[in-house]
């Protein structure tokens, strides 16, 4: 089962800062002798609409932290961040812009 995620989204002058923490081993090919386990896809949605579709690799550290700066936004906007890893596990978290 995927470990916890935590996200904060705060409104600043003209943009929204999103910071999200996720639990994941992010194990590389070399560390695991051919059984890598890492997040491949990262999706950020604002009010249900995908605004970022990211692809990441084994090069990202364990328990990664991402921050995004989104243009505009308003208090109460729902931000959802989800990930999908190479073994098909996934997790997501949602928060309202504060």
């Amino acid at each position, binding site marked *: 089962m995927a*470990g*916890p*995620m*935590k996200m904060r989204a705060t409104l600043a002058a003209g943009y929204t800062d999103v*910071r999200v*923490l*996720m*639990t994941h*081993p992010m194990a590389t090919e070399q560390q695991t002798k051919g059984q890598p386990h890492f997040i491949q896809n990262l999706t*950020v949605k*604002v*009010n*249900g*609409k995908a*605004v*970022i579709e*990211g692809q*990441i690799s084994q*090069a*990202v*550290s*364990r*328990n*990664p*932290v*991402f*921050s*995004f*700066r*989104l*243009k*505009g*936004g*308003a208090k109460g*906007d729902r931000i959802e961040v989800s990930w999908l890893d190479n073994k098909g596990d996934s997790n997501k978290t949602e928060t309202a812009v504060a």
Partner: protein
Amino acid sequence: MRALACAAVLTLVLAPAFAQQKSQFADYQKATAESSPAELFELVGEELWKKRQGPKNASLEQCDLGKGPGVLKGAHAALPRYFKDVERVMDTETRLLHCMMTLQGRSREEALKRPFGNANQPSEMEYLSAYVAGQSRGYKLSPGMTHPREKESYALGKKVFQLRTGLWDFSCISCHGEEGKRIRMSELPVLSDPKAVRPLMATWPAYRVSNATFKTMQWRINNCYRQMRTPEPVFGSEVVNALNMYLTATARGEPYRGPGTKR
């Protein structure tokens, strides 16, 4: 629905950049502190705090960390302190162990099977320590310093800090006694100087970026002794609590802002 044009900047926590100078290393530490996954450990710790387990099938929710059963706010910042029920000084981890044994009915051996975890599997104690410490953010460090046993503990800690021992005849002071020393890129703070100790005690326990693990103060003290080539102290022993008491008392007054992030 608002259409958002987005400029996305991905900030990745990557392996440490080579830091050659003090200022660069300080920059790196600042960057890691701002994007620390320590909070994830707090979340798991909260689940473990509320999880019923052990022969008594009980949670730790009634654990008295010095502020009364189940009171977590500010508890970590007020430890170590003297506990009347056990007639000794205890720090956060020692008290957690005590609660596992009394409330949950677990044996000391079982509760301490894995006091220190690794990146793949952090230990229960590390998760709990993160959760409990996180509940003291904003509270000033104020360990017990009035009871005679607390004064004894402080005096013992101060003495042990200076005590040369082991194969290499090292004391804590050998590394932490004068300014400007370091091991590789880790600067060694002068731990008898409140100015140096305050920011440290305000951020332990902490997430260690270089090996993706969460470390407790008990681990820090044990690992120092391991590096000094002495046997590692027993978990929750009087000596460890005394050292923790000495350090926390030296840092008293500093607002707690951990769990922190270390290199």
